[in-house]
């Protein structure tokens, strides 16, 4: 064993032991189907171990920093008024749910949609009150066989949210999930698990927001499964504004039935190490999937977006646009897979990834991966990585706009393509302000 692998195994063994110890303290609970599934996931995690850079999917994303930290995986605690105040997004109306170190806090949250429109409970609550629902969806979509982090989350996740939108219902108020890791006192880890089930012909917007408080290390390993029945329309936003000592690894797993429409926006404003997996299975005909992403790493931050669109049935459409602005010594990864299965004739799939690299020490790795097994399809992909357009910069400066402002203006215009996709006004305004601040730094 090489010394660099030592920490990988130490953390893994520690987690496996923790699981077994907790298991021994259980009574009948360990016999439930849910726990059986967790145990399988743990065994798989034990087999897989944390991925090293030798793993093809983790070639440019090194988790050794993460494995060297010691985290409290069971931290509790709540937020005092001051901290809560600081986290507010002005004018935001919605079903707003707060999670502190991964645990749901009803006293900080408010659910405004009537139960006839929206069934929403914490994951911990759903496990107790509606095990059938949990059993029929939990881990049915997010694969834990090949992904160690998903396996880890499946084994351990004890809170998050379960959302069910009944057939033919349009939820007119968005759901905002706020995950706050409180790393002011100690290193903390959280493993939220969300399940969003949109019934036939229903419509809902769900936004996940991740923040870290404090200067200690923070780790979030999150999995969200989204299931769209026929004609369902779901918008899913993920906003990451974590600290410079935070690790975020997340998987959003989406399954779409006929005529469903999924719309995703992922905005990574800050975070030391970020890995987002967005996997969409178009398991129906005439589906539409839109994926937008924006990432703005600086200093030594690392942001990795892996997306996968699996066209399993004919006549569906997917369109993807990811954009990044990289400063200082930051690094970025974009890996975009498109599978078109033999049956999936008349597929339209488009992918584009555009990057501006502002410093010679920053770097971006892009890898489009198209695997097309049907012959009557339209697919395209393109990636660009370059500096800011010098000609545009000169044009703006020649009109009297100072260099720094001209650069910000161009960067903001570049990012605007993605930000304009956000359909919740207050979130869009809030993010625009943060992006402007970050870009003019």
């Amino acid at each position, binding site marked *: 064993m090489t010394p660099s692998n030592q920490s990988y195994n130490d953390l893994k063994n520690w987690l496996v032991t923790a699981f077994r110890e907790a298991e021994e303290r259980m009574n009948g609970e360990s016999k439930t189907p849910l726990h059986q599934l967790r145990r399988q996931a743990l065994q798989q995690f034990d087999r897989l171990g944390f991925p090293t850079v030798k793993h093809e999917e983790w070639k440019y994303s090194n988790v050794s920093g993460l494995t060297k930290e010691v985290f409290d995986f069971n931290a509790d605690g709540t937020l005092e008024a001051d901290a809560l105040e600081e986290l507010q997004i002005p004018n935001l109306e919605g079903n707003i749910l707060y999670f502190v170190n991964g645990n749901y806090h009803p006293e900080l949250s408010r659910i405004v949609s009537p139960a006839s429109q929206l069934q929403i409970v914490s994951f911990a609550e759903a496990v107790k009150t509606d095990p059938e629902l949990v059993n029929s969806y939990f881990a049915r979509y997010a694969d834990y066989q090949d992904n160690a982090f998903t396996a880890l989350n499946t084994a351990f996740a004890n809170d998050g949210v379960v959302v069910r939108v009944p057939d033919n219902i349009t939820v007119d108020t968005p759901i905002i999930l706020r995950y706050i890791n409180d790393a002011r006192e100690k290193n903390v880890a959280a493993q939220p698990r969300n399940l969003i089930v949109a019934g036939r012909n229903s419509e809902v917007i769900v936004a996940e927001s991740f923040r870290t408080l404090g200067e200690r290390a923070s780790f979030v390993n999150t999995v969200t499964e989204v299931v769209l029945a026929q004609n369902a329309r779901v918008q899913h936003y993920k906003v990451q504004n974590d600290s410079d000592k935070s690790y975020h690894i997340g998987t959003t797993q989406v399954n779409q039935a006929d005529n469903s429409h999924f719309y995703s926006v992922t905005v990574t404003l800050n975070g030391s190490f970020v890995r987002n997996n967005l996997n969409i299975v178009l398991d129906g005909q005439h589906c539409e999937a839109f994926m937008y992403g924006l990432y703005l790493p600086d200093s030594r931050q690392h942001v990795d977006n892996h997306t996968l669109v699996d066209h399993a049935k004919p006549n569906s459409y997917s369109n993807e646009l990811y954009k990044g602005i990289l400063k200082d010594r930051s690094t970025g990864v974009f890996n975009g897979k498109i599978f078109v299965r033999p049956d999936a004739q008349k597929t339209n799939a488009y992918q584009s990834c555009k990057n501006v690299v502002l410093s010679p020490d920053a770097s971006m790795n892009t890898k489009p991966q198209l695997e097309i097994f049907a012959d009557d399809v339209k697919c395209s992909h393109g990636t660009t990585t370059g500096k800011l357009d010098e000609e*545009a910069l000169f044009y703006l400066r*020649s*009109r*009297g706009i*100072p260099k720094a402002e*001209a650069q910000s*203006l161009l960067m*903001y*215009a570049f990012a605007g393509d993605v930000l304009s996709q956000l359909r919740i006004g207050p979130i869009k305004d809030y993010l625009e302000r943060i992006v402007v601040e970050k870009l003019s730094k």
Partner: protein
Amino acid sequence: MLSISNLQASIGDKQILKGINLEVNSGEVHAIMGPNGSGKSTLASVLAGREDYEITNGSVRFDGKDLLEMAPEERAAQGIFLAFQYPVEIPGVSTTNFLRTALNEIRKYRGQDPLDAVQFLKLMKEKMKLVNIDQTLLSRALNEGFSGGEKKRNEIFQMAMLEPRLAILDETDSGLDIDALRIVAEGVNKLRSPERATIVVTHYQRLLDYIVPDFVHVLYKGRIVKSGPKELALELEEKGYDWIKAEVEETF
């Protein structure tokens, strides 16, 4: 106002300007003509501060100040405006926001208060009439998807908004049909005043029918080889550039 003395500039290893001398006073319109590749656009770019060029010798003074020391934005604030031969398309930046930022930055540099939205819109409406430009064009992203004529008109509109003391028009006539040319020229003429000067860089005499110059200079191989009154432009139109080339080859 503008005093260019022995200006030499190169790009890479290639020397393009080989010693330009030119004096421009307030109220004057100077035309700079010459065959392709003579250095006309380079001269315009160097005056506006494009960084691709290296100045190897000479000086440029604007109101007595060393222009070559200034960043492009400072030159703009001092009152220099370049109408681009190829205006740049900038997606995501609205023309209106861009102009308001530019105008207020220039005002800030000059110690003036910024214009608020109402004042700015009032000014914009006024100047729009001057160049006959449509409101819908200005609400779009800067030059994005504009036709050649729309881009050139937008250049003159920006010039009207920023009210420069020295306007440099780089091949503003290129790609314009005769109607667009007339509109653009009218816009330029309306901005003529005893306090301002204009340098018109052009390959053809056509534009000078509408913007009548006080002086015409012929640029050839990086030097001004002939200067004269407006009639020189007509002579060039009639006889082409070959006789000038021949004259130059004899002299050097």
